[in-house]
């Protein structure tokens, strides 16, 4: 009974960690797509007349929407505080601006040529809130200053503050209308790139490759590639955790092994009698192997149940941990997810179950084989 619980806990630990890790991974993937688009089109030099390209891309059945964007660094300043802003020019009328859902103050719809949306980190650096005004100096203005003209910075009112969860975005982002960006950067009708929303984001790699065909000079980058390092880090983290959990399960399995082993030793006399009665090796192997398999199966079932229970009550459990250790709301602070994200992966469950069954069966078989290998006369003397 204790060994079933041990297996159950091992399996549950493995699956809870895997499922939560998957959840974080999925959540991050979603955020990457929402922040950058499902696919980005860039070129070596700014794209001339992007409207033609956009019209052509929109005609593709896989593309839901396409919009031009511009981007570039600028100096943002308010009074004595200044910071580097990574300014992005987008179409404020575009309906599918994913940034909309990350607005924490103000309103996205207020965006016009005299206004700007700031990432929360940048807003903090500049000590501004919605309604405050900031100055923005673009590199073009520096060029003008070199030529002896006295440029005036753009004065923009903060109309919204966003928090995406990506520190590098939140600490630097400034969003202004595309038209205004072109003006401040003297870009004319050009754009730095086009973002696409796709019908099937999971298939973005293939779609990007297909769309790229015949468009020399353009580079279609699917979202999976945009934050490749980051996504790989998450996957690596998951693999490492799986490895650690694997060890935990192995430890649990050893305790099963020793439980079964002592059970076999306690029954040495009986094993001896069975051999004296003509039992074959496979009888004993079957007897004790089935016992191990049974413990494994029940333990796995218990583990699945525990996993579900723990994940179902995860918020409550986290609250309890936080109140016990006074960490505050870690998930919201560090990851900026309001809930612990989950993503059930059937493969994890299959792997955990198969692994556990194999280990427990072996843990039962080894002592059984050992017992069967003893001479029955000695076994019976041990009584």
């Amino acid at each position, binding site marked *: 009974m204790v060994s079933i619980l041990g297996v159950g806990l091992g399996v549950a630990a493995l699956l809870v960690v895997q499922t939560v890790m998957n959840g974080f991974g999925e959540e991050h993937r979603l955020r990457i797509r929402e922040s950058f688009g499902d696919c980005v089109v860039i070129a070596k030099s700014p794209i001339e007349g992007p409207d033609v390209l956009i019209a052509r891309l929109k005609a593709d059945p896989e593309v839901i929407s396409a919009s031009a964007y511009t981007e570039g660094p600028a100096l943002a300043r308010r009074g004595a505080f200044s910071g580097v802003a990574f300014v992005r020019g987008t179409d404020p009328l575009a309906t599918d601006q994913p940034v909309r859902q990350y607005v924490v103050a103000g309103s996205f719809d207020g965006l016009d040529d005299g206004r700007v949306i700031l990432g929360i980190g940048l807003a903090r650096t500049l000590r501004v809130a919605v309604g405050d005004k900031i100055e923005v100096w673009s590199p073009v203005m520096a060029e003008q200053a070199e030529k002896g003209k006295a440029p005036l910075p753009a004065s923009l009112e903060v109309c919204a503050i966003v928090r995406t969860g990506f520190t590098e975005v939140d600490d630097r982002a400034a969003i202004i209308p595309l038209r205004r960006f072109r003006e401040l950067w003297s870009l004319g009708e050009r754009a730095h790139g086009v973002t696409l929303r796709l019908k099937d984001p999971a298939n973005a790699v293939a779609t990007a490759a297909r769309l790229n065909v015949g468009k020399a000079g353009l580079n279609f980058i699917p979202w999976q590639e945009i934050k490749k390092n980051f996504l790989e880090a998450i996957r690596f983290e998951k693999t490492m955790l799986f490895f650690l959990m694997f060890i935990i399960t192995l430890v649990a399995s050893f305790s099963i092994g020793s439980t079964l082993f002592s059970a076999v030793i306690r029954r040495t*006399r*009986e094993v001896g*009698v*069975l*051999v*004296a*009665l*003509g*039992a074959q090796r496979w*009888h004993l192997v079957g007897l004790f192997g089935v016992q191990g398999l049974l413990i494994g199966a029940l333990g796995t079932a218990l583990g699945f149940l525990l996993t579900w229970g723990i994940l179902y009550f995860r918020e409550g459990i986290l609250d309890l941990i936080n109140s016990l250790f006074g960490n505050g709301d870690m998930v919201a602070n560090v990851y900026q997810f309001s809930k612990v994200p989950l993503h059930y992966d059937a493969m994890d469950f299959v792997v955990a179950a198969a692994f556990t069954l194999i280990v427990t069966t072996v843990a039962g078989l080894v002592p059984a084989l050992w017992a069967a290998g003893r*001479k*029955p*006369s000695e076994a*019976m003397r041990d*009584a």
Partner: protein
Amino acid sequence: MPKVVLQATGLKKSFASPNGPLAVLRAVDLVVHAGESISIRGSSGSGKTTLLQLLGGLETPEGGEVFINQVEQGLVTPRKLLGHGVGFVFQNYQLMPELTALENVVLAAKIIGRSQVEGKARELLQLVGLGDRLRHLPSQLSGGECQRVAIARALINEPAVILADEPTGNLDETTGKEVMKLLLEVVAQRQTALVLVTHSREFAEKASRRLVLAGGVLSSA
């Protein structure tokens, strides 16, 4: 002359001890004929249990040979016939504690792959006087009753020989007498040979042939 069911020649066995190997059996010869009963006496430590283990195939001799004459199979070493060739009756019964009397008897047959044996097992338990105790666990039976179950178990596979190692050693005098009487009756009735190790002169007298194990050799009493 009835046919030979068990034949042992020149059996040797020694055990390691702090003072070098301890020779327990030096040269034991024994021929058992169908239906006969043989009693073996000897002081404690003379090697009686060891001899029975060699005869039954639970141990392998260092020298000499044991053959069991099994119907259809001819002379075979007992090791290959565990469960078939001989039936064991041990001093401390050696029943499976979580199985009932009936199940213990049935197990012995099932373990060597026989099926449809429950009726036979019932019959044998009836024969040893336990027809109404089939569903009792060993812990619910007295020592004498347990030994009766063990006798039924030894008989179920119809062995040519039954090897009994002090079957009354754990029983009080009256019960011991009853069990011994039963054992001798059933083997006589079924024409099964019996090799009986016992300390009791009285029981030893009842065997058709009486032997003594001393100094590692077997001789007539």
